[in-house]
């Protein structure tokens, strides 16, 4: 019985330290590269929608002020981590306002320790480029494009992790 309590205490302690570890951001992990934000107009950005290699690309349009976007962001992060070795790459395309890059977007990327590639798209002439992302897109965010060199799917919706995984698996099955 003594041992039982000892083991129990050990388990509880180990859980606790595990949780603490998870909440702590890793120390100074490539600080400099994370501080540099890639900013594109649509012309510069469109290469991310037209890659012609063997990968499956998951392009998520989001912004720090968009509550449903921020809610689903961890699912995209999880997808990127789990499916990295299955040739899946997530790109998070921020539509944050340029004057808030320093005060909102960069701190957000840092504090959430986002591992997926984040780029900022700053192109106010939206009517010219929204249809080039997808004819189906009315312009609300969150919105997501999943594509490989053979096919492209567009989603103007929020995702759960299970839904996201299901869609990506459709591409993997081929």
């Amino acid at each position, binding site marked *: 019985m003594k041992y039982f309590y000892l083991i129990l205490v050990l388990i509880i302690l180990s859980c606790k330290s595990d949780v603490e570890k998870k909440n702590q951001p890793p120390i100074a992990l490539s600080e400099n590269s994370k501080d540099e934000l890639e900013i594109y107009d649509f012309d510069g950005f469109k290469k991310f929608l037209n890659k012609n290699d063997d990968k499956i690309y998951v392009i998520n349009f989001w912004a720090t002020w968009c509550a*449903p976007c921020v809610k689903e962001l961890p699912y995209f992060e999880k997808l990127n981590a789990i499916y990295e070795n299955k040739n899946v790459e997530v790109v998070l395309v921020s539509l944050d306002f*340029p004057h808030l890059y320093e005060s909102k977007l960069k701190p957000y990327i840092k504090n959430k320790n986002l591992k997926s590639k984040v780029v900022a798209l700053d192109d106010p002439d*939206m009517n010219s480029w929204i249809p080039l992302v997808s004819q189906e897109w*009315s*312009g*609300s*965010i969150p919105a997501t494009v999943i594509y490989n060199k053979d096919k492209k799917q567009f989603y*103007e919706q*929020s995702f759960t992790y299970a839904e996201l995984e299901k869609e990506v698996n459709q591409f993997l099955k081929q």
Partner: protein
Amino acid sequence: MKKLVKLVSALTVVLLISAFTVNKEELGEGYKIGDIAEDFSLKNIDGKMVSLSDYKDAKGFIVTFTCNTCPYAVLYEDRIINLDKKYAPKGYPVIAIMPNNTDVKPGDNLEAMKSRAQSKGFTFPYLIDKNQTVYPKFGATKTPHVFILKKTDEGNQVKYIGAIDDNYKDASAVSAKYVENAVDALLDGKEVEQTVTKAIGCSIKV
């Protein structure tokens, strides 16, 4: 017997058509250019109910789905006020409708709408789509999202769907004033040239 066959096939056609109509509504596709928009009765921030039919002298409407909490909607507030100031006297008033679920976005509740309208000096009604039944009929997906209606003998016909202009960031850098161009054309008795435009907006919160 022939009569019966005819009757049955006619009934089938009617049933099929009605089935598709219901389906379309359920899918929430919303109005297309040329459709007749159904009137509505929504509560204004002053507590009174507002319908399009209340505007006997209007030639049409600039129906604008907007809200307090969306940064894009906020960036367009002054421009929406200016649209009403310019076009209400010409017969095209702005009718603003807040479509969000206020349980999800408490910052968009009627009290918050009231205080925003007061502080900004809204000159137009700011209605709440409390049961969230009106915006799906229009097919609005985001804020801000504009629908220009023209009063015709058949009803209020949808003439334009989309954005206010082509630069959310800077009103002075706008090169295409989509809504103004559309209303100007309608006032001149011409057809609208650019009937549909796209812009980024905040998804309507359900």
